[in-house]
């Protein structure tokens, strides 16, 4: 493995709450190679989004840090473009203008006007949205809007692409199409991607590596699973592939056997970060128990580590 492109070292994240600090993440270590596709998976409220936000620079780790290409990450920036769950396009701008806003900002000094226009169109064509340049986000479907969100992120030429449940709000068919698109684009551009997902199939199909997180509070990396399936991958032929089934099995067993019932270990009800339930596990994610005292939490953490 070559020198890490992106490195998270010993990251701790604590949020201030009225009842004292809430430790969301503890000792998170992660090394990511250039061109690697990494999925973060875990139960709701386990701090996946927090990890992503720290890499994005939208949150500051209370301890430890994140280094990208030898530079410490302190602030958000276009080299770490984020695709949000709800596309986050400006509703008053057209599809073209939304991408233009990003391109204008990032390449104002390095590209001519014509070059910028070509680059915007190139990226929109890449996600097959070249036909709806003058549409507003409200006039296109959720799947199309998410494509534009991806085009906007790609147009920033990010050294790492961060995706926070990019397909979580889409129906299954649209999601499958977008996953195929993303796989193709990622393979062609060889971009580094960190994606949060609730979807086991999505994680196995797209990733080079799946990082499974333990339940919060004080969540950390539980297991890592390298997916050595050849690319390009085809969802239909892979469905019967014993290796694919095995990988899927491994993730499921982590999620539902080793890390099931997050409420047993501690209260996740007062988790300050709101995460939407993606794949409806049917399990209650939080009983409204009283917040555990710090000493108990360490105990819970040990228990958790032993479990993992």
């Amino acid at each position, binding site marked *: 493995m070559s020198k890490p492109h992106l490195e998270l070292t010993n990251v701790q994240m604590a949020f201030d709450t009225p009842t004292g600090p809430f430790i969301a993440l503890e000792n998170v270590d992660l090394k990511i190679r250039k061109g690697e596709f990494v999925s973060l998976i875990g139960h709701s409220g386990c701090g996946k989004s927090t990890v992503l936000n720290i890499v*994005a*620079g*939208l949150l500051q780790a209370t301890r430890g840090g994140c280094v990208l290409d030898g530079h410490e990450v302190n*602030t*958000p*920036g*276009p080299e*770490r*473009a*984020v695709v*949000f769950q*709800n596309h*986050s396009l*400006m*509703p*008053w*701008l057209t599809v073209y203008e939304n991408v233009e*806003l*990003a391109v204008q*900002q*990032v390449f104002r000094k390095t590209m001519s006007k014509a070059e910028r226009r070509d680059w915007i169109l190139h990226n929109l064509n890449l996600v*097959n949205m070249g*036909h*709806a340049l003058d549409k*507003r986000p*409200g*006039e*296109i*479907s959720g*799947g*199309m809007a998410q*494509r534009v969100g991806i085009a906007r992120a790609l147009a*920033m030429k990010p050294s790492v692409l961060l995706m926070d449940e990019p397909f979580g709000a889409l129906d299954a*068919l*649209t999601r499958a*199409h977008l996953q*195929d*698109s993303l796989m*193709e684009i990622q393979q062609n551009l060889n971009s580094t991607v960190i994606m949060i997902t609730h979807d086991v199939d999505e994680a196995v199909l797209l990733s080079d590596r799946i990082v499974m997180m333990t339940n919060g509070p004080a969540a950390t990396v539980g297991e890592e699973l390298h997916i050595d399936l050849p690319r390009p991958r085809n969802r239909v032929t892979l469905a019967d592939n014993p290796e694919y089934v095995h990988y899927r099995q491994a993730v499921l067993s982590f999620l539902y056997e080793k890390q099931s019932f997050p409420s047993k270990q501690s209260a996740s009800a007062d988790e300050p970060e709101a995460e939407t339930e993606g794949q409806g596990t049917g399990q209650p994610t939080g009983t409204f128990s009283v917040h555990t005292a710090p000493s108990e939490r360490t105990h819970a953490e040990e228990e958790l580590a032993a479990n993992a």
Partner: protein
Amino acid sequence: MTTLSQTDQTPAATHWLRALTEKLPRPNLADTGRQLLLPIIGILLFLGFWHLAAPQVQTSLGAFPGPGAVLEQSGQLWQEHSDQRERASQFITMQEQRNERILAENPVAEVKIRSYPGAPTFIDQVVTSLGTVLAGFVLATLIAVPLGIVIGLNRHFSAAVNPLIQIFKPVSPLAWLPLVTMVVSATYVSDDPLFEKSFVTSMITVTLCSLWPTLINTSVGVAAVNPDLLNVSKVLRLSFWTHVRKVVLPSSVPMIFTGLRVSLGIAWMVLIAAEMLAQSPGLGKFVWDEFQNGSSQSLSRIMVAVLAIGFIGFLLDRIMLLIQKKVAWNE
């Protein structure tokens, strides 16, 4: 990729088709008729009630005017206005002719050009009032929108000024007026004033009373920008001004416009009261003068003014709505 683009284009195509059929004119007279029928019935019932009830109310100036008397007076007021215009243009031509004569006899003579000295008519007063209300409203907007943006962006500043807003918001124009009058008389001193003092007084009173809804709505709209969009702005590292211009302002435009519409309504209401009290030219002064005049026609003439005030207020709101539809992205 090919299958993918096809599936996404299908909803686009149906959407486009639907939009087209919606745009096609549907001559649905029955619908329009039904939409107009009830308002017309309402108005007719009101006029009937007014017509029957008015003679029952006896005042020292005779019976309260019914719709007929009011209609007659509105014609009368228009007639007075056109007569006045005619006299004014005669006055101007006579003055020009005289001046030409004087200049023909003696080219270096100084000629005096006077404006027509006649009293302002009802229509003149309406125009004056509109001018004052627009000036006051524009001034209020110029203060309220930038201030609202600052309040919305900065939580500390917001906490600091919020009590002040809450206290000054409910103050009536009548309370402000004496203070504004005194301050304007003391500070607005010039030999050749650009505006009349009475105009400045009314305008400032209108501004003070009408800026609050815009101020509050702007600050709320700015504070309520979707956090995801704020994150996009952060990831793009937009500068402060670009952030305000490209993200904050467009996002809060719908809220700002709702505030502007309320503000304009208040501005118009406040203006009439201010003009009445300050004796500054305008519709309020017209009402007050007619009241003081106390002729047998006064009540009908005041009633004409009341209806005119209502209609103009309604029109102003409609104009704001039209502007909102042009400007706001969600309309």
